[in-house]
């Protein structure tokens, strides 16, 4: 909950991706609950069962249709061209979105800083995508470059079309080039991401989802366009179990909003209920729009997030 007193900033690839994490996540690959046949034919493990589990419909060929979709078996039998409609078969991309608003600069000790955790998770995910020859993109919402006076509420910066292990360093350099700052206009940022992305694949959004204007509009935009979205809500150990007690004046690091409270045991109990209700509402909304949801503490290890949580939900295999 409380802002990190002396935040530890990642400077190098080693800070973001320790050897131990590489060992744990190196055997993973990006996956999807939907059918994505894959970038290079034959490389992606097909999710099809039997010959027709994803069969949708037959449709007569018409001008403009992709010749590769023609069902040649039926052509051989009927001497007419029909398209056998399957689920989408597209190049599978991995798009990692990181929230760099001021609220992500929280968590004690310094190693449990939420932004650092998100950077490390983004790096590990990107690494999995890169070594498996997926098209990887990474977008940071909000924040500012180190040394910059101030950023913009709806700003996004992206590294796109990365492919192959050799681009790991580029991704690390990109992630190290941002530090958390200010308020984020999530909807505007999501609008920009949705408008600029191409193709299909898996999108992982790392954020604390503390948006006072709501997260629904932004997530709705991100969930469309052929991307299977996973929301990873990163909260610090202190946000899940606050250590603060007594009469305090709580000041929001993003917008300076102040609240005077007397923190007592009943209040902490109520706060705990609100945390559960907030995360539950986000989880429910994700289910409603067909997105996956993971709640992560910035105190946990990144490889646990990938190996235990995201793999269990089908984002990784």
């Amino acid at each position: 909950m409380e802002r990190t007193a002396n935040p530890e900033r990642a400077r190098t690839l080693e800070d973001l991706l320790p050897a131990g994490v590489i060992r744990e996540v190196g055997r993973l690959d990006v996956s999807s609950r939907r059918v994505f046949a894959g970038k290079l034919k034959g490389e992606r493990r097909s999710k099809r069962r039997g010959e027709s589990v994803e069969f949708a419909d037959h449709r007569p060929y018409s001008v403009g249709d992709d010749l590769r979709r023609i069902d040649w078996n039926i052509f051989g039998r009927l001497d007419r061209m029909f398209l056998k409609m399957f689920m989408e078969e597209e190049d599978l991309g991995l798009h990692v979105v990181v929230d760099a608003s001021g609220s992500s600069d929280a968590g004690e000790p310094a190693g449990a800083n939420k932004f650092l955790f998100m950077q490390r998770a983004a790096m590990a995910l990107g690494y999995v995508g890169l070594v498996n020859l997926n098209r990887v993109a990474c977008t940071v919402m909000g924040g500012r470059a180190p040394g910059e006076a101030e950023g913009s509420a709806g700003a996004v910066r992206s590294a796109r079309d990365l492919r192959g292990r050799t681009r790991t360093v580029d991704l690390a350099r990109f992630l190290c080039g941002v530090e958390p700052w200010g308020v984020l206009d999530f909807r505007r940022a999501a609008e920009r991401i949705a408008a600029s992305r191409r193709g299909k694949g898996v999108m992982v959004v790392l954020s604390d989802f503390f948006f006072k204007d709501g997260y629904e509009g932004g997530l709705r935009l991100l969930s469309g366009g052929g991307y299977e979205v996973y929301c990873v809500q990163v909260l610090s150990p202190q946000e899940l179990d606050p250590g603060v007690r007594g009469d305090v004046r709580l000041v929001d690091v993003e917008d300076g909003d102040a609240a005077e409270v007397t923190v007592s045991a009943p209040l902490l109990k109520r706060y705990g209920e609100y945390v559960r209700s907030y995360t539950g509402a986000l989880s429910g909304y994700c289910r409603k729009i067909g997105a996956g949801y993971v709640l992560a503490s910035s105190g946990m290890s990144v490889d646990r997030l990938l190996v235990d949580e995201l793999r269990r939900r089908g984002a990784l295999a």
Partner: protein
Amino acid sequence: MSFLTPQWAIAAGAVAVPLVVLLYFLKLRRRVVEVSSTLLWRRAVEDLRANAPFQRLRRNILLFLQLLAVAAGVMALGQPQVRGGGSAGGRVVILLDRSASMSAGDAGGGRTRLEEAKRAALGVIEAMRDAGWGFFDAGPGADEAMVIAFDESAEIVQGFTSDKGRLRASVEGIEGTDCVSRLGPAVELARARAPRASVEGEGVDAGAVPLTFHVVSDGRVEDGGRVEPGAGDEVYYHRVGEAGTGNLGVVAVRGERSLAEPEKVAVFYSVQSTYAEGVSADVVVSVDGEARGRRVVEFDGASGGPVEKSGVFEWSSRLPVRVEVRVEKRGGEPEALTRDDSGWVSVGASRGLRVALVTRGSYFLPEGLGALPQVSGPVVISPEAFEAELKDGRAGGYDVVVLDGWVPSWEGEAGRLPPGRYLVFNEVPNRVSADGGAARVAGGGAVLVDRGTAGRSSMVRWSRDHRVLRGLDLDAVTIFETRVVEVPRGSTARVLAESTRGPALVELSSGGTRALVVPFDVAASDWPVDVSFVGFLSYAVDYLGGGGSGGLGRTVRTGETLMDRLPGGAAEVRVSGPGGSLVEWGVSGEGALAVGPMRRAGLYEVSWRGPAGEGDEEAGGRASRVYAANVVSAAESSVGAAEELALSTRGVPSAGGGSGDGVARRLWPLFLVFVLVVLMVEWWVYNRKVHL
């Protein structure tokens, strides 16, 4: 409870309480703590702001007593009184699933799920509270219940009443259908009929009263994840049927007649198995009642999910044919659900689609439509000429009308679509104003709100499973001048594609009208130069015109309304259904026919006295046409009962049979007594403390 002199109580409370609190609590010094966000604290903080003084009060029993004395004095000044009677009981809504899967006979004792569901619903009715138990209210305190039967749509079979006899009779009278289940319409219908609460004495509307829903179903609802009960509503799920029940079903069937060789008829089918173990089955195709082909299909075990197999039969026939595709399980136990074992297709004589393009001048649309093989030369006419054709009935001859930047008037209302099939570009039909459209929306209309033009946008989301968009990629489409539209709450319009500025493709369907609306000007976008544009035109014309090449449009899903046009002059229209039932049916002056919704799967024959259309059959001075209605739903054919009813924000576990556990009981009088007891205990604690 009401007060005789509330103004005295308010004035005294407004002065005395803040004064006492201020004296004690405005001297706090607080430590400043920077937090990531006050969002999570927001409500807690609000509570705390209200509660903080009481936290302090807890430490100062004397102050607490002073405030208590003040509160009691204030209440006394207000002269509170309780009125006898007038308090209504709980509102119970029984939602009974009557969809196709409820015909499965796995409810034990050879009974169907529907019979078991009725038994459970009767249990809920029996457990309802009768009048006269109330603590303070001597009058009508009984629970009232409403019974809604639902499948794809919802129907109130009994409005709110506390008469258990009527409720039981209404439940007994529910019959099963062959439709899929959707819970959303049923919940919305109940919410719409819920009585409104008002603030006593003020006449202020405080919204609908909370309802207690009892969903009696096998949990196989298509839209569970999108259903949101109202705030304060309670939901109980009474599961019927077994979770492990396997089933074979026809989940897709389609008939085609070749455009190039009209005598060739092809029928595509897809059959699904949900048996955990491997099964084999025969797929039998019958043409006009005679078995024409049989294939053996082997299914592996479906432990990881349903398994589908598909295939095609083809033969030659110039005559209209009625085809049944039936799956028959080989060996083992008989099927629990047989309603979905057959799919029907009616394939008429071949002809091209008649398409009219109503425009004042367009480059892309005539080119695009002219390239479609299923269209026999689009007729390009002006809006004025089309208005004239509408008036004299000639417009009924078109299968699909493409409107470019213009919408005709209908029944004196400008911009409203007449019955028919339309593809609309660059215009917003069935428009309502943002504030004044409530009445139209309440009437169940497919209406839109026009917000005018805006700048550039790009496509972000589209329904990949809709027949018009399946296989299309709209990623690359950029709209330079967007027409911003909005679907008002309650409108039946369905958004098929969204741009960054809102809906970009909307389907309107009501009565005899079906339309696909592209509100922006395609010439002000790069869509016409994208390959997906021609594909969209082709699929949209096919979808609206019903395929054209042999009567795809004569196949509907159960639950849908059959819409077609009969030749001008058709009279004495009769519709005979699968059970041999025969009804007289009205038809509008333009020949627009709307029958349904079709609740039973099978073949329907529509006959009339008058001229026959191209490809219609004629016998005994009557012309006729055959339509097919099919279940064809993979979800409905997966009959394993769901352990949990998944709603948008939570899952509701099964509450067991119909014992009625969970019927809401008002306990506030007991709570009031409890509060009094607590006050007495506090008083006792205070005295004890003083004595010590």
